[in-house]
C-alpha cells in the first residue's frame, strides 16, 4: 500500500510539473497573440499591466474569476456546466504524451500519435455540448458549424499523419522525433507541412476559419451564453489546443527537441528549449495569419477541406509510399 502512495505522489508531482508551466504559457501566449496582432496592425496592443504588458492575461483571468457565472434558466444545466470542463480537460490531458526531450515525457506510450489524434477528435464534444445545452439559436448554429468543420479537417490531419508515419514506422512520438535525426520531415514533406498548418488553423477554430464564433453572424457562437470563469475555461482550452497543435506540428515536421544543426552553438542548448522555440515559431505564424487573412466563407471552408486537402494528401500518401518502396527505404522491416 505504501508503494502505491509513493507512486501516486511522484506521478502527481510530475503532472503538476507539466501542467503548471502549460497553463502559465497559455496565459503568456494569449498576450503574445494580442501583441503580434497589434504590431501587424501598427497598434501597441496590451502594454500597461506589468513590464511590456506581460501581466495582462493575469489581470484578465482575475476579472473572469470575479465575474458572475450566469446559467440560463432554460439551459440543460448539467451539460452546460460540463461543456467547458470537457474542453479544458481534453486540452490538458493531451500534453501527457508530448516529448520535451529524450526520455523527458510524462507517458511514453506506443500509440502516442493516435492518442493525440483521439483526444483532439474528442475536443468537438466540448463545443457541441456547450452549444446544445445553452438552448439558444446562435450557440446551437455555432456548435453545428464548428463540429462539421472540426470533423472535416480531422480527416485531412489524419491523412497527413499517415504520411509522416510511413517515413517513421512507429506510432510513438519519441520515435517520430528520433527518425528526424538526419533530415527534418519538413523538407521531404513540405506540402504536407503547409496543409497541416492550415488544417490546424481550422481544427482549432482560429482565424481565418473562426466561423463557429463569427461575431458578425453568430454573436460568439457556442460561447454566447457563457460568462465568467466558464467562458475563461473555454478560452484557456482553446489556446491550450492551439499550443498543442503547434507542438504536434513541431514534433511531426520540425524535429521536436532536435537542434537544427548538430554543431556547437546549437547543440549546447538543451532539447526542451528547442521544442519551445519551434512551438513559439509556429504560434507566431498562427498569430500572423490571424492578423492578415480575412475570414473564409463556410462553403469555401468545406470545399477546401474535402475537395482540395483530402485528395491532395491522399495523393501524397501514394507518392510517399511508392517513393519509399522504390528506393527500399521503408522503415521497420
Amino acid at each position, binding site marked *: 500500500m505504501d508503494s*502505491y502512495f509513493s507512486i501516486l505522489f511522484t506521478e502527481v508531482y510530475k503532472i503538476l510539473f507539466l501542467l503548471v508551466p502549460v497553463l502559465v504559457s497559455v496565459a503568456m501566449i494569449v498576450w503574445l497573440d494580442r501583441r503580434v496582432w497589434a504590431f501587424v496592425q501598427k497598434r501597441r496592443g496590451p502594454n500597461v499591466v506589468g513590464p511590456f504588458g506581460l501581466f495582462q492575461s493575469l489581470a484578465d483571468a482575475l476579472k473572469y474569476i470575479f465575474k458572475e457565472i450566469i446559467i440560463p434558466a432554460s439551459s440543460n444545466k448539467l451539460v452546460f456546466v460540463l461543456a467547458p470542463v470537457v474542453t479544458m480537460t481534453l486540452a490538458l490531458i493531451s500534453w501527457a504524451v508530448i516529448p520535451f526531450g529524450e526520455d523527458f515525457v510524462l507517458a511514453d506510450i506506443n*500509440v502516442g500519435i493516435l492518442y493525440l489524434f*483521439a483526444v483532439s477528435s*474528442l475536443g*468537438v464534444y466540448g463545443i457541441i455540448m456547450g452549444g446544445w445545452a445553452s438552448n439558444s439559436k446562435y450557440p446551437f448554429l455555432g456548435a453545428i458549424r464548428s*463540429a462539421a468543420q472540426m470533423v472535416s479537417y480531422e480527416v485531412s490531419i*489524419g491523412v497527413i499523419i499517415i504520411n509522416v508515419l510511413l517515413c517513421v514506422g512507429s506510432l510513438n512520438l519519441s520515435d517520430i522525433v528520433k527518425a528526424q535525426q538526419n533530415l527534418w520531415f519538413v523538407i521531404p514533406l513540405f506540402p504536407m507541412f503547409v496543409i497541416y498548418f492550415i488544417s490546424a488553423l481550422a481544427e482549432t477554430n482560429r482565424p481565418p476559419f473562426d466561423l463557429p464564433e463569427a461575431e458578425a453572424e453568430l454573436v460568439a457562437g457556442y460561447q454566447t451564453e457563457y460568462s465568467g470563469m466558464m467562458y475563461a475555461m473555454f478560452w484557456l482550452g482553446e489556446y491550450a489546443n492551439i499550443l498543442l497543435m503547434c507542438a504536434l506540428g513541431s514534433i511531426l515536421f520540425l524535429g521536436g527537441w532536435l537542434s537544427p544543426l548538430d554543431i556547437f552553438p546549437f547543440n549546447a542548448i538543451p532539447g526542451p528549449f528547442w521544442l519551445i522555440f519551434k512551438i513559439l515559431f509556429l504560434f507566431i505564424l498562427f498569430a500572423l495569419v490571424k492578423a492578415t487573412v480575412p475570414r473564409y466563407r463556410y462553403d469555401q471552408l468545406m470545399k477546401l477541406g474535402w475537395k482540395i486537402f483530402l485528395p491532395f494528401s491522399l495523393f501524397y500518401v501514394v507518392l510517399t509510399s511508392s517513393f519509399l518502396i522504390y528506393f527500399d527505404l521503408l522503415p521497420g522491416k
Partner: protein
Amino acid sequence: MIAHSVFFYIFSLIAIVSAVMVTVSKNTVHSVFFLILDFISISCLFIMIGAEFLGMIMLIVYVGAVAVLFLFVVMMLNVAEQKGQWFSSRWDGGTHIPVGLLVSLIIFFELIIVIGGWKYKPDLLNSLSINISTEVTNTRSIGNVLYTDYILLFQISGMILLVAMIGAIVLTYRERAGVKRQSYVKQISRERDEGVDLVEAERNKGVKIDA
C-alpha cells in the same frame, strides 16, 4: 494487480450503467452522451488488456466520428424529448412493444448463434494459425495480419462501406434549380472588356441599357 482489477470493475460498471442509460434516459441527446461514455469506457477496457491500438481506434472512429453524426441527427430531428410514449398508445391504439420484442428476439438468437459457435466449436480458438509475438507492438501485429492473410475480407468490408456511402448519397441527392456556383476560374479570368462597357452619354438624354 489490485489497482488493475479495481480499474477494471470501475470501467465495466460505467460501461454497463451507461449502456442501460442509453435505452432508459428520456432525452435522446442524453442517450447519445451516454453512448459516448459507453464507448470511452469500453476503449479503456481495450487499453487495459493491452490492445491500445484497438482502444485508440475505437475512440477515433466511434467517439470522434460516428457519435458526432448521431448527435447531429438527434439534434437536427428535434426528437429531444420522448415523453414516455413507448408503452402508451401512439397512433391508432398500437404500441411499439410487438416490434421491439421482435427485434430483440432476433438479436437474442443471433447472439446465441455467435456465442454458441465459440462454445461448441472449441477448435475455432486453436485453429488461429497466426503467431502472435509479444515483442512487437500490437499495431504492427494487427497490420501484419490484416494486410496479408485477411486482405480480401478487409477490402470487401471497405467495399461494403463504399457502397453504403454511395447509396446514401444517391438516396438523398436531389437536383436543385437556380443554384449559383462560384467558379474561381471564371472570376479570375474575367477581363476588362467583359465587365466594363464605356458608353458615350448624350446630354439630357442619358443612356438606355438593353439588358
